C-alpha cells in the first residue's frame, strides 16, 4: 500500500506527455523547424521550377562565361573575360570606396564633433547647422546632388578644365591628381621601407620602456618617424629615386600624368563622406559629453592646456564610448556604397545587376552579392571588436 502511494506521488509529479512542459517544448520546436523547412523548401522548389521554365541555368557554371560588357574605369578589363573577373573588379571598387570613405569620414566627423563643442560660438553654430542639415537628408540625394548638380553642372568641360596649382585638374570628364609613379620595380624600396618601419617600432618600444623606468620624456613618435624618414630617405637616394612625382598636364582634350579619378567615384565618395561624417560627429559629441565632468575639472586642476586636456584625458575616454556606434556607421557607409548604382560608378552591385540584365541568372548572382557584403561587414565588425577590446576598461 505504501509503495502504491509512492507511485501515485511520482505519477502526480510527471503529468501526461501531452501536458508535460518538457515534451511540449521539444515538440513545439520540432514543429517550428519543420514549418520553416517546408516554407524554405517551397520557395526553393518554386524558384527552381520557375528558373527551369524560363530556361535559366541553376548552377554556377555561368561564372566562367564571357562577361559581354565593359567596366568603365577598369582599362585592363575586357568584355571577353569571365563574369567571375567582372565581379572581382566590382568588389575591388566597392572596397576602394569603402576604405577611403571610412578614413575621410572619420577625420571629418571627429573634427566636426569637436567643433560642435568649441568655445567659439561661430564654429559651434556652423558645425551644428551642418550636422542638422545633413543628418536628416537622404544619403542618395546627397550623392545625386554631388554628381548631377556639382560634378556635371558646376565643373567645366575638359576643354577649359580648372587647374589647381598644377597639382589637380578638375573637369566633368574626370579629376586628375598629383601622384607618384614607379620608375623601377618597387621591391627593393619597399624592403628598405619595411626595415625602416621595423627600426621605428623597435625605437618606439625602447623609448616607451625607458619612459616607464626612468620617467625621461619618451618622444617615441619623434624617434620612430625620424628613423623611418632617415632610412627611407637614404634608401630613396641610394636606389636612384624609385618613385617620381607626376603632375597631371592637359593638352587640349588629353590629360597625361597624375592619377585619374572618375567623376562618379568622386561624387560617390564626397556624398558618402559628407553624410557619414555628420553621423560620426553626433556620436563623437555625445561621447565627449558622456565623459564625466570631473575629468575635465581634474585636468584643469593639474594645469593641462586645452589641447592636452583633450588629447590625454577626454578623447581616450570618449573613444571607448564611441567605438561601437562608429563601427556601425562604418558598416553603413560600406553598404551605402551600393548607391553608386544611381550615378553609374561601377562597383559590386552595379556589376551584379548589369550581369542580371544580360540574361544571367539572378538568384545565384544575388547570393554572391549578399555574400560579398556579408564578408565585408564581418571583416569590419571583427576589426571593431579588436579595437573595442583593446580600449575597454581594464578591470583590475
Amino acid at each position, binding site marked *: 500500500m505504501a509503495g502504491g502511494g509512492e507511485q501515485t506521488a511520482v505519477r502526480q509529479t510527471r503529468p501526461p506527455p501531452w501536458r508535460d512542459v518538457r515534451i511540449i517544448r521539444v515538440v513545439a520546436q520540432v514543429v*517550428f523547424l519543420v514549418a520553416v523547412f517546408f516554407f524554405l523548401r517551397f520557395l526553393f522548389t518554386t524558384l527552381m521550377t*520557375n528558373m527551369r521554365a524560363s530556361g535559366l541555368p541553376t548552377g554556377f557554371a555561368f561564372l566562367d562565361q564571357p562577361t559581354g560588357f565593359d567596366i568603365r574605369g577598369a582599362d585592363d578589363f575586357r568584355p571577353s573575360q569571365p563574369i567571375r573577373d567582372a565581379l572581382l573588379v566590382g568588389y575591388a571598387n566597392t572596397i576602394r570606396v569603402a576604405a577611403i570613405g571610412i578614413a575621410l569620414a572619420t577625420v571629418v566627423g571627429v573634427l566636426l564633433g569637436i567643433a560642435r563643442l568649441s568655445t567659439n560660438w*561661430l564654429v559651434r553654430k556652423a558645425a551644428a547647422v551642418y550636422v542638422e542639415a545633413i543628418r*536628416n537628408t537622404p544619403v542618395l540625394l546627397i550623392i545625386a546632388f554631388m554628381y548631377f548638380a556639382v560634378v*556635371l553642372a558646376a565643373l567645366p568641360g575638359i576643354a577649359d578644365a580648372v587647374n589647381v596649382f598644377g597639382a589637380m585638374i578638375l573637369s566633368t570628364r574626370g579629376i586628375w591628381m598629383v601622384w607618384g609613379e614607379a620608375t623601377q620595380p618597387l621591391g627593393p624600396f619597399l624592403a628598405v621601407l619595411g626595415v625602416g618601419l621595423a627600426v621605428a617600432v623597435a625605437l618606439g618600444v625602447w623609448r616607451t620602456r625607458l619612459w616607464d623606468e626612468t620617467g625621461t620624456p619618451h618622444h617615441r613618435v619623434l624617434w620612430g618617424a625620424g628613423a623611418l624618414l632617415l632610412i627611407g630617405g637614404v634608401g630613396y637616394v641610394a636606389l636612384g629615386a624609385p618613385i617620381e612625382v607626376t603632375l597631371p598636364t592637359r593638352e587640349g582634350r588629353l590629360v597625361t600624368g597624375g592619377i585619374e579619378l572618375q567623376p562618379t567615384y568622386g561624387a560617390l565618395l564626397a556624398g558618402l563622406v559628407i553624410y557619414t561624417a555628420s553621423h560620426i560627429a553626433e556620436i563623437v559629441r555625445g561621447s565627449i559629453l558622456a565623459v564625466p565632468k570631473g575629468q575635465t575639472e581634474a585636468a584643469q586642476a593639474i594645469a593641462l592646456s586645452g589641447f592636452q586636456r583633450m588629447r590625454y584625458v577626454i578623447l581616450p575616454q570618449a573613444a571607448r*564610448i564611441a567605438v561601437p556606434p562608429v563601427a*556601425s556607421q562604418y558598416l553603413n557607409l560600406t553598404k551605402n556604397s551600393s*548607391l553608386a548604382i544611381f550615378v553609374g560608378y561601377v562597383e559590386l552591385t552595379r556589376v551584379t545587376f548589369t550581369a542580371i540584365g544580360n540574361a544571367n541568372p539572378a538568384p545565384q548572382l544575388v547570393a554572391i552579392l549578399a555574400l560579398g557584403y556579408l564578408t565585408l561587414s564581418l571583416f569590419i565588425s571583427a576589426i571593431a571588436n579588436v579595437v573595442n577590446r583593446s580600449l575597454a576598461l581594464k578591470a583590475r
Partner: protein
Amino acid sequence: MAETVETPQVEPAEESPVLTEDPLTQPAATPGEWLRANLFSTWYNALFTVVFGAFLGYAFFRLLLFVFVTANWEIVRVNLTTFMVGRFPRGELYRAWVAIGLVSAVSGLGVGVAARRRGRANRVALLRMAAPGIVFVAVLLALTSTATPALMVALSALVALGSRTVGMRLPPRVGRYMPILYVATVFGAYAAFSAGSPMTYNNFQGLLLNVFLAIAAITLCFPFGVLLALGRRSTFPAVRLVCVGYIELIRGVPLITLLLMGATMLGFFVPAGMTRPGQVTRALVAFVLFAGAYVAEDVRGGLQSIPPGQVEAAKAIGLSPLKTTLLIVLPQALRNVIPALVGQFISLTKDTVLVAIIGLTDVLRVARAVTSQPQFAGQGLQAETLLFTGFLLWSICFTMSRASQRLEKRLGVGMR
C-alpha cells in the same frame, strides 16, 4: 541606409554644455562680454573667428544669391503638383485635400485631448518642433501659382483649431482610444485617395509615394520587428537560431540589394498561375523585411533592459506567458527604446527615395525627370530640383526627429 547603433546609444545632451551658465549665480553678460567670451577669447581665437567668419559669410552670401537670384525656380513652380503626386489625375486632386483635412482634424483632436490630460504644452517648445513643418508648408505655398492650396491650407488649419477645441471639451478618458483613431485615420486617408477610383497605391507617384511607403513600411515592420525580437529572446533554441540568422543576414546586406531582388527576383518565388505583385508592393515587402531586422535589434535592447523581477512577479500572480509578454514586458521595453525606434523610422523615411533606383516614380525620380522636359532641358537645373527634393524630405525627417526629442523628454527615458 538604415542607421543602427547597436550599443548603448549615446545620450544626446543639452545644446552647448561648455557654456551653460547658471543665470542665478552669474550676472547676465553684456553684449561686449558675450562677444569676448564666445568669439575673441584669445588672439588666435579672434584671428580664427575673423577668417572663418569671412569664409562663412561668403558661403552664406553665395547660397542666398543662388536661392533668391540665380536659381531658376520656374521648373519647380511649373511641376509642383508633379513633385507632390506625380501623374495622379488632376481632376481627382480634391482627394488629397480630403485626406489632408482628415489628418488635420484628427491631429487637432489629439492635441486637444492631450492638452486636457496633461495641461497646455509649452508654446515655445511646440513651435520649435513644428518650425520645419511650417517652413515646409510656407515654401510650398510660395511656389504655387493658384489660390486653391492657400485656401485649403487655411481651411485645414481652421479644421484643426476647431477639432482642438472639441478635443479639449471631451472627457479625458477619450485619450485611451486615440491610438485606435490614429490607425483608423491612416486607413481613412488612404481610402480618401483610392476609394472608388483605380488609383491604388501601386499607381502612387511623387512625394505621395514616399509618404505612403514610409507610413506603410513603418506600420508593418514594427509588429514584424517585435516578433523577431521576441523570437531572438525566446527560450526555444530553434526559434532563437532562426531569428538570429534572419536578423544578421538582413543587417549584413544593403537595402538596395533587397529592393533590386524584389524588382527582379520576386517573380521567381511566386508559383506559376498566381498574379505577380505590383512594383510598389515589391518595394514595400523589401522595406518591411529590411526594417524589421533593425527594429528587432532596437526592441531587443529594450527587452534586455527589463529586470527579471518583472517577469518573476508576473509569474507569481499567475499571468500566462503571453499575458506577461503583452502586459508586463513589452510596454516597458518599448517605452525604453522609443528614441531608437523613431531614429529607425526616420532612416526608413529617408530610404524611401531608393525606390528611384528600381524605376518607381518617387519624388527623386520626378526631380531627375523634369530637367529633361523640353522647356527646361539642357539648362542645368539639377541643383534646383535636387535641392527642392532634399528640402522636402529634410523637413519631414527633421520634424520627426524634433518630435522624438520632445517625446523622449516627456517620457523621461533614462530618468526613472
